[in-house]
């Protein structure tokens, strides 16, 4: 399989990465090189094989449903580019 220019723009949008028109052909070439490389997996017989979900056989750990952290709003917004009164600021979302 290979991707065309339209698909490259669609993937970039899905990944939320702005891509200029001038970058599309180059990215298309790179993505197609990677897809050509992974193409060899199609020759493996995977009939009846379970997909891996956990590389170490272990039971899913569950923590106790208790509050063990909190009251640290200064820490939480401390690295944010723009904040006001412990809120993260973003461009207007609702008109």
């Amino acid at each position, binding site marked *: 399989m290979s991707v065309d220019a339209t698909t490259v723009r669609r993937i970039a949008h899905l990944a*939320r*990465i*702005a891509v200029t028109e001038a970058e599309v052909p180059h990215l298309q070439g790179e*993505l197609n090189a990677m897809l050509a490389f*992974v193409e060899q*997996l199609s020759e493996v017989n995977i009939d009846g094989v379970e997909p891996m979900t956990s590389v170490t056989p*272990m039971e899913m*750990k569950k923590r106790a449903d208790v509050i063990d952290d909190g009251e640290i709003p200064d820490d939480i917004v401390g*690295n944010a580019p723009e904040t006001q009164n412990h809120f993260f600021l973003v*461009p207007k979302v609702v008109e």
Partner: protein
Amino acid sequence: MTDLTSLTIAEAREGLASKSFTSLELTDAHLGAMEAARSLNAFVLETPDQARAMARAIDAKIAKGEGGPLAGIPLGIKDLFATKDVRTTACSKILGNFVPPYESTVTSQLWRDGAVMLGKLNNDEFAMGSSNETSCFGPVVNPWRREGSNTTLVPGGSSGGSASAVAALLCMGATATDTGGSIRQPAAFTATVGVKPTYGRCSRWGIVAFASSLDQAGPIARTVRDSAILMRSMAGHDPKDTTSVDIAVPDYEAAIGRSVKGMKIGIPKEYRLDGMPAEIEKLWTEGAAWLKAAGAELVEVSLPHTKYALPAYYIVAPAEASSNLARYDGVRYGLRVPGRSIGELYENTRAEGFGDEVRRRVMIGTYVLSAGYYDAYYLRAQKVRTLIKKDFENCFAKGVNAILTPATPSAAFGVGEKGADPVEMYLNDIFTVTVNMAGLPGIAVPAGKDAQGLPLGLQLIGRPFDEETLFSLGEIVEQAAGRFTPPRWW
């Protein structure tokens, strides 16, 4: 006094205990070496004030007969580990000036045991790379050079800063992380020892995530013993990481010198690649002979799905990366590039903040997870991963204790020599990536030099949670091959 920076951790531990020198003296010696080696670009942040404060505090403890297993030992920390109040960037522009208000579990255990932090080490951006050339801080320089040449070589990656700093005697050991070979490949390129523990052995909490089902922290050090000393402090159960395993941490150092008589060492025929350089082949044969001389039994084994590990990895790892890196949105931390809408803000921030390799992997990961392609790519790759793991299980079920392979298909290459074709760069990890796909432990040990005088390493792959056998076998290789130190030119 001998040059303090040339001591091993084990030697420094003795010197500190017998009061031959203080941690402050040891720390100052390393801070001086770091300053003199800035041209290597191994450190992206030096923390001399914090280092001296930590050294003074531990000296006071040592004087009272306290301290811990790593009391007073100065270490470098890969910039993928969150360090409280100390800038942590994963060497990406998108994290900008991120200063974590928390400490990663692995580094907190090092400080608990008395280690001293010298600074943060360079790595490929988000640990995506095999040459440390994708870092937003620029490439790291390998202290090794080809004989009679001034060509600047890469230290490997993604833990290139860790490997370069340890090899150049800038720190006594370093933390590193390994998703497809990022500890073992740079260790092999710099004649250092690198350990990738079993998945779940070290907590991933507080380490910037790349591909969560493959990422594992481990040490880079100058000797097998030193790597065992560091492993004991880094390993352990952490309730904050649900994939961290709740089993006791053995005294890894005690495994060194243990007899390997009667152990079965697998030599996988699929690792004998067409066109493999004769010197890699020779190194591998020599390594096998050393283990045999120590009483181990060599057996040929087959890992039939080996060739599919790298292509499967380049679906699984980017898929997980695309999901993990979705958090970098310009809102909660890091870089923010304005836009007219929230969507534009995301897109502009991520376009500006991610480097080429990261963008490429996020995009391929997004594609293989997208509707209509998930089954053909991601699900198929996860099934192939099951087969890769099964290969190893079959081999261990036949009584094989460990597997011996070359660590890399070549010695270090020049800065800018590879990378025009991303797939060519990816082939660096051909011998190491299977281990991550199967969640196994692996160690890279320096074993010789190529015709140009550059170090080469061997890899030992172990059974799950049997790092001890790797330390026993690794030390035999180390004893036979000797240690390698780059001549100082910087």
